[in-house]
Structures are given as C-alpha cells and as structure tokens.
C-alpha cells in the first residue's frame, strides 16, 4: 500500500517554495515571489503554513529602511521534503 503524500507539500506553490529553499542557504520573499510567479498575498499565506508546520523559518529584518523577509528550510522541512520525494518515487514506480 502506498503512503499518503504529505498534504502540506502536495500543493504547487508550497512545493515550489520548498524546492527553491532546498537548493538555497536562504532566500528573500521577493526572490521566492519572482521564481514561483505568485502573488504576494498568496505566497505570504503559504509561507505561514510552512512555518507553522516547522518546515521553514521566517526572519523579518530591515536593510536600511527596506523590510526584508528571509526564509530558510529547517531540518524538519528537509526530512519532510525527502520523504515526499521518496513517496513520489513509489507512486511513479507503481
């Protein structure tokens, strides 16, 4: 029997964000927005969901007067992403 795919990651935008963060040390909100081609509001909601699950950390700071939102993937997030990819592999093999 196949394992269920993590519903938190099984969404296009959240999966996109996690894939980007897996390849980066850290990324700014504007970068994620540009690469995922999403709206600020939608991205913000999805980032909060990932953060509440402990998959990413969100740090708010300032560069001069410009507000910065920096996202980083956590160990829990890396584990969840790897499990998601492994389950995905099982689905494709089937």
């Amino acid at each position: 029997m196949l394992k269920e795919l993590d519903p938190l990651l099984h969404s296009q935008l959240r999966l996109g964000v996690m894939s980007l963060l897996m390849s980066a040390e850290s990324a700014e909100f504007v970068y994620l927005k540009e690469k995922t081609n999403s709206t600020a509001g939608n991205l913000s909601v999805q980032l909060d969901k990932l953060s509440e699950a402990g998959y990413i950390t969100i740090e708010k700071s300032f560069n001069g007067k410009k507000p910065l939102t920096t996202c980083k993937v956590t160990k829990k997030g890396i584990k969840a992403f790897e499990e998601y990819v492994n389950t995905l592999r099982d689905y494709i093999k089937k």
Partner: protein
Amino acid sequence: METKNDSLSAQQSLDVITSMIRQAQGNVSRSSFYFLLWGWVIAICNLGMYFMYKLHFYPRYAPYIWLLVLPTYLAMFIYGRKQEKDRIVKTHLDQISKWLWISMAITIAPAWLFGDKLNWMINAVIMMPIGAATFVSGIIIRFKPLLYGGILFWVAGITCYFLPPIDQILAGGIAVVLGYLIPGYMLRNQREKDA
C-alpha cells in the same frame, strides 16, 4: 503558481520540483569584482617590485609595495558586507566559494609572513593553492577561462621552483594577469551581456 492540491499528479509534482531546482541552479554569484580587484593589486605588487629591482628604482623599498594588500583587504571586506546585505538568495555554493578563498588566504599567509625561511621562494609555494582556488571557482560558476587560469597558476608555480626569487616575482605578475585578470574581465563582459 496556484495552490490547488487535489489536481496535482505525481508527474506534476516532479515537474514543479525539477523546474524550481533548475531555476535555483543559476544563482551562484558570478561576481568579477574580486578577481579584478585582487588581479590588479597582485599584478601591481609583483610587477612593481620586479621593475623597481631591475631598474634600480629605490630597490630597498620595493618590498613595501606589498602594503597595498592591506587596504585591498579592507575594500574587499566592505564590498563583501554590502553584497551580502543586497543579495536576495544565498546558495550553498556561494558559501563554499567564500570559504574556499578564505581558506586559501589562510593557507598562503605563512609563506608571506615567513618568506625568509623559504629563501624567498614565496611565489613557488603560494601559486599552487591560488591555482587550486581559481580552478575550483571555475567549476563552481561553470566558467572555463577560470579553469585555464587555475591550470596556468599551477604551471607557473612549478616553473617558479626553477627560477631565482626575483624572476619568480615576474612569473607571478604574468600568471596573475593571464590567469586572474583576463578571466576576470571575460567574466565581467559576460555578465554585462547576460544583463
């Protein structure tokens, strides 16, 4: 990108992952600034010292030309801090690249500081790690001229073992111009073309 999750098939999920990873791959910083800054400074130091000796132009003071390295470190530090602040994404390869050059600087520092113990065969010793760092930088940013630059430093480093100290300085100057400055300008031109 939408947030629907019921319509996402396994294949679509894979497509999202691969396309995002591909997007992130081009994010290694390809800054030519450091290559140009250090290229010019080290070329001026090597060639300046060589010609001061050869042309008998205050040869006693020739080694002091290397003091130029100190403000260069400061300029690099200020530029690096600013760049880190402005960067919207930091990749593992950026970190590797940064620490590669810091490790290289630590590796060659004793040769500079205790050159008398090496009978001033400094360039023979320091050009090998510089070659390694240049070559690996070429691999990281996928830029062939830096690979050739790295190889050139290795060749120059080995050649230096057979040269008297003063000619090693000339070899060092030539290696920096060909292996560092020219790839640095090529990198800058490519960046401008890509922009």
